[in-house]
């Protein structure tokens, strides 16, 4: 009898410990950060952490409409860098990103933004055709065209994705296949290799976690 009571007690204790350990899961915040001393409403000095954020941007989308960060402000979005004539990693990236899109297409808080790095050939009309053929010519998934300077700086300095022209590469450009997850405050919260199915699966799991942070 004693033994039974003892084992029940052990069981309840371990359940209590396990359940108390469950913390709210949060995604990490990537990029540079620094601290600033600010005064709160009551005039008391506080130290605040300032995170790296995506700056304002303005590009032409697949409909040749000037599109700015206003479209993604207040939303979380997944961004990537590609070009339409790419035969190496881009088709795989977009095949995988398409599965993410399909899972979240009915959620108004999630968007997709693909930047072309082929500033010579991928004009909006080319992007339009590409989007149509991929089967996602919608407002929710923007295909953006911009000058080499603006797109490459945004990629490398802000989204932390390496891109570049390379005459030795088969298609003329090289780039990393990251799908970058950005939160509603324009901070980078994740980067997933779009060519790897397990990382894309992780992205699908992380999007609801990020959305949950804002549901308070």
């Amino acid at each position, binding site marked *: 009898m004693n033994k039974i009571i003892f084992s029940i007690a052990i069981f309840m204790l371990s359940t209590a410990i396990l359940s108390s350990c469950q913390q709210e899961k949060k995604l990490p915040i990537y990029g540079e950060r620094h601290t600033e001393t600010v005064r709160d409403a009551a005039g008391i000095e506080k130290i605040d952490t300032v995170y790296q954020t995506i700056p304002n941007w303005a590009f032409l989308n697949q409909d040749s409409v000037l599109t700015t960060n206003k479209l993604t402000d207040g939303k979380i979005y997944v961004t990537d860098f590609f070009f339409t004539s790419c*035969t*190496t*990693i*881009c*088709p*795989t990236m*977009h*095949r995988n990103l398409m599965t993410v899109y399909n899972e979240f297409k009915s959620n108004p808080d999630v968007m997709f933004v693909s930047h072309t790095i082929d500033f010579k050939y991928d004009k909006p009309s080319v992007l339009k055709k*590409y989007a*149509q*053929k*991929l*089967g996602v010519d919608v407002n929710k998934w923007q295909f953006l065209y911009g000058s080499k300077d603006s797109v490459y700086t945004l990629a490398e300095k802000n989204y932390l994705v390496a891109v570049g022209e390379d005459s030795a590469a*088969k298609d003329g450009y090289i780039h990393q296949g990251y799908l970058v997850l950005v939160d509603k405050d324009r901070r980078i919260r994740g980067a997933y290799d779009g060519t790897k199915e397990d990382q894309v699966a992780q992205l699908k799991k992380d999007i609801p976690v990020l959305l949950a942070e804002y549901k308070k």
Partner: protein
Amino acid sequence: MRKYIINSIFFCSIVAIIVSCQNQETIDLQNYMSNGKDIYKAKCQNCHGENGEGLGQLAPPLTDSVFLKNNKDNLACMIKNGISEKIVIHGKEYNEKMPGFPELADIDVAQVMVYVTNSFGNNQGFVPYSKVSTQLQNCK
């Protein structure tokens, strides 16, 4: 009795030789299939997908057995030199350019062609390297 045993062993070995001869093509096919799969992964899968499903209207699926059969003498050239004219697959038009893969040796082309034409529900059987080599010399 002894004669009987010797005879039966002789008979068995004859049968074994015939069976193994018939299997040479099967062995070659298996060889091509396994090498072809590696080449497919490296060169084709990005656009055509792991299961030959294609990608939207950008890259056609590789599951149209009728197309593959009708073009079986051109497939090697298509793989090596790419395609620039529009093609119709499963009744749908595809007019994106397919890049060529001139870096592939004839044997690689043969292996990946055999892999594609015997995977994803296709079943066209074995094509030897020598035949593919001749086809590649006569590309348009």
